[in-house]
């Protein structure tokens, strides 16, 4: 039996040398987990964090509600005659905008996490290297889904009626979540690259504001100057919001879906490897 453990038995049970020894010998090492299994385990970690700190769902509940209400009543009368008519056009777009905006928190959480000791442990494990990052994004995909549902419910309360029915709505959300998952690799990259949480926030804002506002989320780009149309019409956010709008309205906008998925693939191909390079070098 170990020594010097009599007095502290009150507050902390003693370490049991025998059971410790038994555990150490008993340890038959299982085969390594698959890439999928490791990623899902990290996704589980992200969900546990939400469970312990539910306040972090604020940005996927209160923020989206605010976005829907604010823009519907702010622009509705001026742009479409009434908020009720405008919401038909706006909701899929504001959904895209809000969820894509929420993705930037990924960078902040990667950045705050990477400084902690637990990251050293993860990085010294014999597992598929990107699984840590994929885990974040899987956890975040859940947050994007929650945000989408919240916005849809609010939208329907104030008059949004998707012609695409349940199927169209689900397809729209699925596309949006898939795109956001891919887009988030930009943030994992910044989260690893920049030194402080504040700088991650700052850079994220610089990227996200022009990208989401300069799109067809609020208005038809036809009234914009030519140079701006050139940007807006080719923006991934425009393609995505057209695709989601189409799907929720019951159409099958194949081109826009293909563009959205193409952009998504490009984001993963470019920013995934950069993220992993930074991760391995950290």
């Amino acid at each position, binding site marked *: 039996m170990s020594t010097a453990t009599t007095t502290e038995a009150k507050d902390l049970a003693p370490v049991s040398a025998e059971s410790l020894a038994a555990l150490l010998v008993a340890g038959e090492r*299982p085969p390594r987990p698959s890439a999928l299994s490791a990623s899902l385990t990290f996704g589980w970690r992200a969900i546990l964090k939400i469970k*312990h700190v539910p306040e972090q769902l604020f940005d996927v509940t209160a923020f989206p509600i605010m976005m829907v209400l604010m823009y519907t009543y702010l622009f509705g009368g001026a742009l479409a005659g009434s908020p009720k008519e405008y919401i038909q056009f706006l909701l899929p777009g504001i959904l895209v905008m809000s969820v894509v905006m929420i993705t930037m928190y990924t960078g902040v959480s990667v950045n705050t996490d990477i400084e902690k000791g637990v990251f050293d442990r993860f990085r010294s494990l*014999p597992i598929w290297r990107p699984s840590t990052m994929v885990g974040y994004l899987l956890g975040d995909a859940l947050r994007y889904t929650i945000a989408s549902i919240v916005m849809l419910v609010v939208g329907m309360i104030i008059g949004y009626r998707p012609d695409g029915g349940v199927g169209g709505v689900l397809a729209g959300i699925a596309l949006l979540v898939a795109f956001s998952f891919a887009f988030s690799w930009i943030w994992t990259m910044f989260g690893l690259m920049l030194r402080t949480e504040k700088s991650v926030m700052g850079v994220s804002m610089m990227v996200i504001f022009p990208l989401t506002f300069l799109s067809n989320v609020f208005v038809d780009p036809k009234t914009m100057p030519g140079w701006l149309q050139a940007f807006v019409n080719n923006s991934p956010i425009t393609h995505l919001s057209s695709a989601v709008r189409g799907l929720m309205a019951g159409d099958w906008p194949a081109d826009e879906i293909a563009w959205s998925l193409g952009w998504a693939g490009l984001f993963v191909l470019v920013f995934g490897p950069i993220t992993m390079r930074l991760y391995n070098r950290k």
Partner: protein
Amino acid sequence: MSPTPSRSTSGLAIETAGLVKTFGETRAVDGVDLAVPAGTVYGVLGPNGAGKTTTVKMLATLLRPDGGEAHVFGHDVVREADEVRGRVSLTGQYASVDEDLTGLENLILLGRLLGHHKKAARVRAGQLLEAFGLTDAAGKQVKHYSGGMRRRIDIAASILNTPDLLFLDEPTTGLDPRSRNQVWDIVRAVVAQGTTVLLTTQYLDEADQLASRIAVIDRGKVIAEGTKGELKASVGAGSVHLRLRDPARRPEAERVLRLALDTDVQQEPDPVALTARLSGAGDSAAEQASRALAELARAGITVDNFSLGQPSLDEVFLALTGHDTHEVPDAKEEAAA
């Protein structure tokens, strides 16, 4: 220490040659050579900023060396990083567990990442919590744990899969003496099962308690290496502190001590106190001290109080480098000395 089964064919758990890591202008690790026998506790002793953590991080595949080579159980830490990761485990200087999760969740998470199925991971986590006396705290978030509990959960996570080599980076820094003793007990239990432990520490007595060989690191270089005995012989066995009854007899006592011990004797600010450094070679510290006391008694000098001090890390550094752990003279010129 009892002989332990070696898991390496070469008998060396770690072998490095000329390991270098620079951060900008600073050479954090500047040509470190280590040979760590498998199945033992190897102590890396040094002050803050000596390069201990950087060395551990390179060995644990977390940092890429800028020069030199390092092998863990014969595997190159850069080219065969994955092999190395499969055999080592790391307890970093700061808690290497997720503070937002509970102790149980942390261990299940690790178990799953190490390939255990859900049920097996849960069982193993429960057993570890039990063995580490943390069953009552299993459902609490680690951020609410005390320092001693954090260390336990951290080490529990590190031995989940019984690693061949365990890195413990300053495992007792900031712990109270009781928790420190408990960590020492854990380390002894782990090494008794055949795991090699590389322990970094700032405390000489910790290295003394646990390690069979010790490397002393200063400014990125190994300045001394050997068994505890060898190291102590080069440093001195510590010092004896005396308090006399009569301050007027201090000069006389000082003379007696100098003759009896053949060493430096220092007058302390306290007018009745004296400190004598003991020699590391020859007689043990206790023998030297009793000789000193006997001589003082014969001279009729009354000693009120007496204590025997281990050499401090400061003294080790003073003896080995000529500077103490706090002053940082210009590195480039001093390095040649």
